[in-house]
């Protein structure tokens, strides 16, 4: 008896214990019978629906939703129909039928173990209001769903997808868009999916359709679909939610036990009961399945001894201590380590069972495995952050407008950049006031569309900038939802001012180009790579005489050039410098040449390859004619002025011009009423060295010099002569004599004297210093040094003497000289000169080669002069050749004799060759001689009616001088 009573008490205790757990769970549990009558609820439900108490005996829709009929979408009814788990998010209805929040509602079938029949339904309810609120917040801000949203074509392809697709399934956007979505559907679900697809094309909406999609890593995800077709667009808008973790949960709770245990086990939630020492008292089925530990193995052990990660042991102990201390309920998340080593993230709702004495007897943890959900959430967070970054950094303006009062509720930083306003200037202000008055109809229409749940087609609005200007914006907007209700418009605006301007400019320029092409007096043509014209404007017909028809695609560009070479040059230059720009002669069809200003530019493809050449040519015949006329006039004028070399003008004491020589007037224009300094010199004040005041003061002629800037800095000598007119007034007459030429000669003379003096000074200075060196050497009795100094002195004196001789000759040549006509044998003359240089030739071991043509020996000329020429040439050859050969030749060339002297010596640089005929030019001052040899030869040869040429292939490559003289 006693044992029976004990057993009875034990059963009662067990019953009480289970009841305590049932009641203590933080999530709501409600048991319904098949007719939707509430049979039993836990404390959480009583707390939530305090206004509808008592709950037991009422219909669920009545108690929970304040309705008189069952709800249309109800997971419980679904479970009753199917006998399977159903899930739905349902609104939490408050006392006055107001939506207070949102609940996750799982309904599990309640099966009688004995009969196997469904007795009713267990609703497991979790308050997700807070979660929802956060979601809504996020949606409001980002208008991006954690759900996979897409537009699906009736053709079986995705048309558009949001980033969630990538985050959840791992495929890239491209991969998803490039193949029929059926390819990704689990083979077992294809048939059902096809059926849904067909249904959509017929215009039926689809809700909660579930199928499995292949993830990139090979796993399948369960997706729950809601789709709505737009038949006229032949596509559907669809939202898919990853419900894999719910599906997994479903599998966990396939088995049930007795009433209470069933509740505890069926819910699929983890339920663990722990005593105040931390030892597990109860470990439900879900816990077993999640962890891999059997209840009998787990019970009696402390959770932190085997289920927690090292890191979380201490925090969980704290949570536990808190609960034992009476601070419950609470919530937290932590990991459990399964027997297999897998980590599972669990979201716990904890509470404690308190004894009648107020002492905590047990702690009950109710948990849900949120590993998968967390993973998805993390993936989403990424996308949220991305979106936030996008929002903050977007070039485009992102905004939202409230439906309630049409005020702007959100603006991103781009707004400030684009408009110049501060965001605070407009947040909370009516959005219509920032829009151009003319665009208000569009703004209002699109806003209303958005509020009606439609997404308006992209539209353009002008937005008022802070500066008062308007910026052209292209907008896309959509309704903004909050808790399923449209609360406003969400949109993106892009500044297209520049684009518009460019578009306009493009249209304008195209139009302009077309007009230009045909109407302006300019040849416009283009040639392709083959060199044939592909473009030939109207004016070209007139300018060149060829019609468009005979040119386009047929005529090569060469036809309008004088020579093939010219055409090649144009293309080559344009290709190399990207432009050819020159005045050239172009050929008319009839063969006459057209002076033209030709500009050719290459046209390149994006890779830089030249595809064509565009050419523009202006006929400058007229301009050339005018230019020539002007030139002629100028020349005539110069001739007149040059001939008289005088110009006369009369000026009064106030510098007013009274008379100007007509020849001057042609250059300077009408002198009437002008001051002399303005008229001649372009000055505003009297010239600094003006002779007029002095001439008038002293009544004497004053001579000054002026440079005329308007006539190429011509130098004139001004003789200012004062005189009295018939009224007794003093005036001056100026006689202006051109002394430019005289000045030039004077300058040349000065240069000559300076050059000569430098030439003479150098050897003299050297000699003087060598003498001093010799003196020092004598003091030290250094015989070698004495001799060296002596040699230097004598050499420098010789150099001086030679220089003086040459200079004297040069000056003598400047004087008039009577050339004698003497019979000369070239061979004989050459030998005579060579004899003078024999000593040096021998010391340098130079070879002398001669080649005289028999009939090229006789010459009639001035013998002395001819010798000067030969001496100079041979002198240079010997001087500048250290080894090798000197070759002398003479040959007959018609009426002329050609004499050449070639050497294998130092040769000459290009610069030296160009300057060789300059007096005193020497490639180096260290070179012997004055630098007059070749100029003297030139002078003599020219006097004799011949010519002289100097050749050298470069320094070190020898020199060849060729003198051509008439035979008589």
């Amino acid at each position, binding site marked *: 008896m006693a044992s029976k009573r004990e057993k009875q008490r034990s059963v009662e205790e067990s019953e009480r214990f289970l009841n305590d757990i049932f009641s203590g769970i933080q999530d709501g549990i409600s048991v319904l019978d098949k007719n939707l009558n509430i049979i039993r609820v836990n404390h959480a439900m009583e707390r939530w629906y305090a206004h509808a108490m008592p709950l037991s005996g009422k219909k669920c829709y009545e108690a929970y939703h304040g309705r008189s009929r069952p709800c249309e979408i109800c997971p419980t009814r679904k479970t009753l129909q199917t006998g399977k788990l159903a899930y739905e998010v349902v609104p939490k209805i408050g006392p006055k039928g107001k939506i207070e929040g949102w609940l996750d509602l799982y309904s599990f079938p309640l099966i009688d173990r004995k009969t196997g029949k469904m007795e009713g339904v267990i609703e497991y309810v979790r308050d997700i209001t807070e979660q929802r609120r956060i979601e809504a917040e996020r949606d409001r801000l980002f208008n991006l769903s954690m759900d996979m949203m897409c537009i699906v074509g009736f053709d079986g392809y995705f048309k558009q997808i949001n980033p969630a697709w990538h985050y959840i399934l791992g495929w890239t956007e491209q991969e998803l868009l490039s193949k029929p979505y059926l390819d990704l559907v689990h083979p077992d679900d294809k048939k059902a999916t096809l059926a849904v697809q067909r249904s959509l094309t017929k215009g039926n909406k689809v809700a909660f359709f579930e199928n499995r999609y292949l993830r990139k890593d090979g796993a399948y995800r369960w997706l729950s679909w809601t789709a709505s077709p737009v038949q006229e667009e032949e596509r559907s808008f669809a939202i898919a939610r990853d419900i894999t973790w719910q599906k997994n949960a479903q599998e966990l709770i396939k088995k049930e036990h007795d009433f209470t245990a069933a509740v505890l086990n069926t819910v699929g939630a983890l339920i663990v009961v722990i005593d105040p020492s931390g030892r597990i008292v109860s470990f439900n089925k879900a816990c077993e399945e999640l962890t891999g530990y059997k209840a009998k193995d787990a019970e009696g052990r402390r959770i932190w001894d085997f289920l927690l990660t090292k890191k979380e042991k201490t925090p969980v102990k704290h949570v536990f201590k808190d609960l034992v201390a009476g601070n419950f309920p609470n919530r937290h998340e932590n990991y459990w380590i399964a027997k297999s080593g897998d980590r599972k993230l669990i979201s716990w709702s904890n509470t404690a069972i308190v004894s009648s004495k107020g002492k905590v007897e047990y702690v009950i943890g109710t948990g849900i495995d949120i590993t998968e959900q967390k993973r998805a959430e993390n993936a989403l967070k990424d996308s949220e952050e991305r979106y936030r970054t996008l929002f903050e950094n977007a070039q485009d303006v992102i905004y939202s407008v409230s439906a309630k009062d049409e005020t702007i509720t959100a603006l991103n930083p781009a707004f400030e950049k684009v408009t110049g306003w501060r965001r605070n200037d407009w947040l909370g202000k009516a959005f219509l006031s920032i829009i151009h008055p003319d665009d208000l109809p569009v703004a209002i229409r699109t806003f209303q569309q958005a509020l009606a749940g439609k997404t308006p087609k992209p539209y353009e609005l002008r937005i008022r900038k802070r500066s008062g200007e308007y910026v052209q914006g292209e907008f896309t907007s959509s309704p903004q939802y909050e808790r399923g209700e449209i609360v406003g418009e969400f949109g993106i605006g892009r500044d297209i001012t520049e684009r518009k301007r460019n578009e306009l400019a493009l249209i304008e320029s195209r139009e302009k180009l077309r007009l230009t092409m045909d109407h302006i007096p300019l040849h416009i043509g283009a040639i392709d790579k083959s060199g044939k014209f592909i473009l030939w404007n109207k004016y070209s017909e007139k300018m060149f005489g060829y019609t468009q028809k005979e040119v386009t695609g047929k005529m090569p560009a060469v036809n309008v050039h004088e020579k093939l070479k010219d055409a090649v040059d144009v293309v080559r230059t344009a290709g190399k410098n990207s432009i050819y720009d020159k005045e050239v002669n172009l050929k008319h069809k009839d063969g006459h040449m057209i002076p033209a200003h030709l500009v050719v530019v290459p046209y390149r493809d994006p890779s830089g390859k030249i595809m064509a050449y565009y050419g523009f040519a202006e006929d400058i015949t007229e301009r050339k004619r005018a230019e020539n006329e002007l030139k002629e006039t100028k020349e005539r004028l110069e001739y007149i002025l040059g001939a008289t070399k005088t110009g006369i003008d009369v000026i009064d004491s106030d510098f007013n011009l009274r008379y100007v020589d007509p020849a001057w007037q042609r250059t300077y224009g009408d002198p009437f009423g002008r001051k002399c300094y303005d008229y001649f010199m372009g000055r505003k004040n009297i010239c600094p060295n003006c002779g007029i005041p002095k001439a008038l003061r002293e009544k004497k002629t004053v001579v000054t010099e002026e440079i005329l800037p308007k006539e190429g800095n011509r130098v004139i000598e001004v003789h200012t002569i004062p005189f009295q007119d018939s009224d007794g007034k003093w005036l001056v007459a100026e006689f202006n004599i051109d002394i430019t030429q005289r000045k030039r000669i004077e300058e040349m003379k000065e240069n000559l004297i300076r050059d000569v003096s*430098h030439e003479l000074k*150098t050897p003299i*200075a*050297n000699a003087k210093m*060598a003498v*001093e060196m010799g003196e020092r050497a004598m003091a030290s009795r250094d015989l070698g040094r004495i001799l060296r100094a002596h040699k230097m002195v004598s050499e420098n004196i010789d150099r001086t003497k030679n220089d003086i001789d040459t200079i004297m000759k040069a000056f003598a040549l400047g004087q008039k000289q009577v050339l004698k006509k003497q019979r000369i044998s070239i061979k004989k003359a050459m030998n005579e000169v060579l004899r003078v240089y024999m000593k040096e030739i021998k010391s340098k071991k130079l070879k002398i080669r001669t080649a005289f043509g028999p009939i090229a020996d006789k010459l009639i000329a001035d013998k002395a002069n001819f010798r000067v020429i030969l001496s100079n040439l041979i002198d240079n050859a010997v001087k500048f050749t250290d080894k090798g050969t000197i070759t002398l030749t003479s040959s007959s060339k018609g009426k002329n004799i050609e004499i050449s002297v070639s050497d294998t010596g130092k040769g000459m640089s290009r610069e030296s060759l160009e300057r060789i005929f300059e007096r005193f030019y020497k490639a180096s001052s*260290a070179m012997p001689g004055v630098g007059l040899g070749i100029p003297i030869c030139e002078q003599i040869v020219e006097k004799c009616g011949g010519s002289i040429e100097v050749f050298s292939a470069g320094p070190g490559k020898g020199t060849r001088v060729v003198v051509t003289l008439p035979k008589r």
Partner: protein
Amino acid sequence: MRKILIVEDEKDMQEIYRDLFEGQAKYEVDIESGTMPALRKLTAKNYDLIILDIIMEPIAGDSFFVYLRSDNKTSSIPVLVVSVLGPEIMEKLRRVDHAFYMQKPVTKEKLFEKLDDIITG
């Protein structure tokens, strides 16, 4: 010992300079016959003074002077122009601070006097 670089392209003058500086211990002298070798020397060695001839090819001494003044490394080295050209050549040179002039011919006595002046003064 003070270091002097002589830029002079005439063989005779080079020999005379060599003779002038022989047997004295005050100055160490390098003689270069052209501006290019002189530049090479200037980058390799620090000189206290440059003696410069003006009539030289291919780069005339005056151009070389301008170059010396434009290069930070050489802009403050005193330059003594020794030339047959008259003192007016100095007017053609710019930035003639630290620039001195002597007309050829120069005597040993005068040259050393000048060098002492420039280097110690």
